[in-house]
């Protein structure tokens, strides 16, 4: 693929941009990318988790599943590599194998041996949380005069109550 800016050199940087709600792909060579101020060196020495992220990175580059995503929140292994943060609790399941290796490297273990935890009444607590969310959305719908939506939400709330 040829660089979309100079049309000469090979494109090595592939950017996905969102410009006025449209997704565009830009392919750049290293030189043009540098001119645009895009960092092509993927190491992150300035991050406080430097070593740790590098470990993730090395591991990820060995793994074919770099683009693997958590189906719940959409975080990819690559996102995690850049930020050092996972997107949600289910990421731990989605990236279980990679995380096990990483946790072993960071903590010397991948298994929790501390206090256990059982949610006393999870369904009730979850219902409370859902109800408060639905009530919030209902108030919004009424404010926005979306009465059809409001009626649906009201039914959902009644069912849960």
């Amino acid at each position, binding site marked *: 693929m040829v660089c979309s800016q100079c049309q000469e050199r090979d494109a090595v940087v592939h950017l996905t941009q969102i410009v006025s709600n449209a997704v565009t792909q830009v392919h750049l060579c290293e030189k043009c990318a540098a001119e645009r101020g895009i960092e092509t060196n993927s190491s992150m020495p300035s991050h406080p988790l430097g070593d740790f992220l590098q470990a993730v990175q090395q591991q990820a580059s060995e793994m074919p599943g770099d683009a693997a995503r958590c189906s719940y929140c959409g975080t990819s292994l690559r996102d995690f590599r850049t930020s050092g943060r996972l997107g949600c609790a289910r990421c731990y399941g989605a990236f279980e194998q990679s995380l096990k290796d990483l946790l072993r490297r960071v903590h010397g273990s991948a298994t929790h041996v501390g206090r256990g935890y059982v949610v006393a009444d999870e369904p009730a607590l979850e219902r*409370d949380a859902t109800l408060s969310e639905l009530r919030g959305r209902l108030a919004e719908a009424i404010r926005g005069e979306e009465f059809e939506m409001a009626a649906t939400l009201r039914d959902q709330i009644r069912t849960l109550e």
Partner: protein
Amino acid sequence: MTLDLSLLPDGGVPWLAASGEHSDIVLSSRIRLARNIAGFNFSARERDGERLRILAQLRHALPRIPSLSTAMVLRMDDLSPIDRQVLRERHLVSRELVGPDGAVDSKPASAVLVSEHAGLMVNEEDHLRLQVFRSGFDVPGALQAAVRVDRQLGEQVPYAFHRDFGFLTSCPTNTGTGLRASVLVHLPGLVLTQEIAKVLQGLQQMGLTHRGLYGEGSDVVGSFFQLSNQTTLGRSEEELADHLHQVVKRLIEQEYAARRVLARDAGYIIEDKLWRAYGTLRHARSLAADEAMNLLSGVRLAVGLQLIGGLSIYTLNKLLVFGQSAHLSHHAGRSLTESEANVARARYVRGVLVNEASAEG
């Protein structure tokens, strides 16, 4: 909203009292537990309104959590930058919660709950960060109290928990117990005898990490260090806390030994330097923040060596925290420039020292 510090239980800093063991060396012991609420994305992927819903769910549960039911709830986005910084100077909130330096706004729905039992940061890097402080050297006491609050909280708010990985956190460096046990220590003896580099290296090998007075990213000033465990997984809460306790216990002995060496080999030189530090604090008309911290460090050592009598560790702790810039601005009712703050700091320190029973040699 203006922050009324008198409404905070014990000002949010009961540990200043210096009532615990070895409080001349260990200012405070702290346990922090990182928790996330099941069903919400972590902060890096938060969806619209999730931060507000997290805070709402917590407030809804509060009356049923005995150790937090009477907590004062402070929303960071209701507070001025100065007031947010005041909470930071009291170690009640993290830099993440305060927001970047000089920022007018903090992230929406970030909050801190302060009760006499614990502090709880909401919508930090993790949804919940529970903190318990103890005065002096009392890591087990802090752990016991933290576990009690955590148990009550976890009964009312469903935590994100995994059978193998334990308590799930936004960053895997905290996963497992989510526990960070730390002590704030004053090690001038080891610094002056130049043993400190070796000691810190040793601590690292034992799995402890060191930072400045205000944690991650803060400089070491005045020989004050924050020491904490590096790993959170694969060992129980008690093991992690006990490890820190044992290592710090040895460290305290090393510090006392270094102080004995100082008193023996450098007697009058040290004595003179420390009295000069006291003299400057007692009479200066302008004190920069770092300067004041270094001088207070000297006077603290002098009190520890029993060179200066009539000054309490409580007073020195108070000067260390309340003499910082945001506290001075808060007291003045407006944002002070650096030079104004230096003048205000000197006035504050003089005022406190003159009211203490006059120091004697």
